[in-house]
C-alpha cells in the first residue's frame, strides 16, 4: 500500500473513527441540538450504548450535554461544539482524500 495512504489512515481521529460515534456526530451536524431519544432513533443505538459514546465525545470536547426543559418536560439535549465541528470536518477531508486520489 502507498505510504502516503497509510500516513493518512493513521492521522484519522480515533474518537470519531468509530461507526457509532461518527453516526452521532453526523446527526448533530444536521441539527442545532437534539435529545437522547432523537439521536438514539436516527442512529439505531440503544440508550445505554448512546450514553457511553456521548460521554466519550463529551470528554473529547466534541459535544456539549445539557439538562434542560422543552415546554414543561425535562430533556437531555446534546449539541455539537465548534471543536467537534472542526474535528469532523478534518476527518471527512481525510476520508475524502482517501477515496478521491485527486484531493488531499
Amino acid at each position, binding site marked *: 500500500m502507498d505510504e502516503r495512504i497509510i500516513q493518512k489512515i493513521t492521522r484519522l481521529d480515533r474518537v470519531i473513527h468509530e461507526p457509532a460515534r461518527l453516526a452521532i456526530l*453526523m*446527526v448533530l451536524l*444536521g*441539527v*442545532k441540538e437534539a435529545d437522547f431519544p432523537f439521536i438514539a432513533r436516527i442512529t439505531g443505538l440503544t440508550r445505554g450504548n448512546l450514553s457511553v459514546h456521548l460521554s466519550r465525545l463529551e470528554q473529547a470536547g466534541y459535544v456539549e450535554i445539557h439538562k434542560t426543559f422543552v*415546554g414543561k418536560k425535562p430533556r*437531555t439535549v446534546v449539541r455539537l461544539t465548534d471543536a467537534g465541528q472542526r474535528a469532523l470536518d478534518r476527518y471527512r477531508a481525510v476520508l475524502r482524500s482517501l477515496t478521491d486520489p485527486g484531493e488531499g
Partner: protein
Amino acid sequence: MPRTEQPLYEARAAWWEDGIPETLSGLTLIILGSLGWAWSHMEGTPTGSLLKILWALVLLGSILLLKPLMFHLKARWSWDRTGYSLPRRELDLPSVLMILGAMGSVILAVLSLHPLVQSTGIALFVVLLMGSLYRYARLVRFLGYAVLAGTLSLVAGLTGMPPAWNVHLTLAILGGGFLLSGVSRLFRVLKIREHPHG
C-alpha cells in the same frame, strides 16, 4: 461518502416527518390560493378589495404566527414521540443560488408581459424552491411537489390562463399536496407511544 452522510440527511428530514410543518404550510397556501383566486376574479369590486386586504392579513399572520404555532404543536404532539431536535439553518452555495433563482423567477413573472414567460417564471419558482428543500433533506416528495406544481403552472400558462389565476391555482394545488401528506404523517406519528422524557 454517501453512507456517512446518511444520518445527516435523516436528521434534517426529521423536521418534516411529523407532518406539522407541511400541514400548516398546506393550510396557509390553500387559504392564500383560494383568497387570491377569488380576489383576482373580483378585481375592481368592493368585495375584491376586501379580499385583497384579507389576503395580505393572512400572509402577514402566517409570517408572524406559523413558526411559534409549529413549535407549540411539535412540543404538544410530536417531540415526546419522535424525539426532540432543532434544525440547523445553514445552507450551502447551490441551495442559496436556488432560493435566489426562485426569487428571481417571481420577479421575472411579475415584470414580464408575455404570458408564457409569466407562467414559466411561476413554474420555475416552485421547482427551485422545492428543489432547494430536496437538496437540504433529500426528501423525494419535495421533488414530487415540484413536478406537480411546475407542470400545472406551465399547462395553465399554455392554455392561456391569466397569470394571477395561475399563481393562486398553483399555490392552492401545492397546498393541497402539502396538506394531504402532512395530515397522513401526523396521524402516523400520533399512533406512536410517548416516552416519559428525553
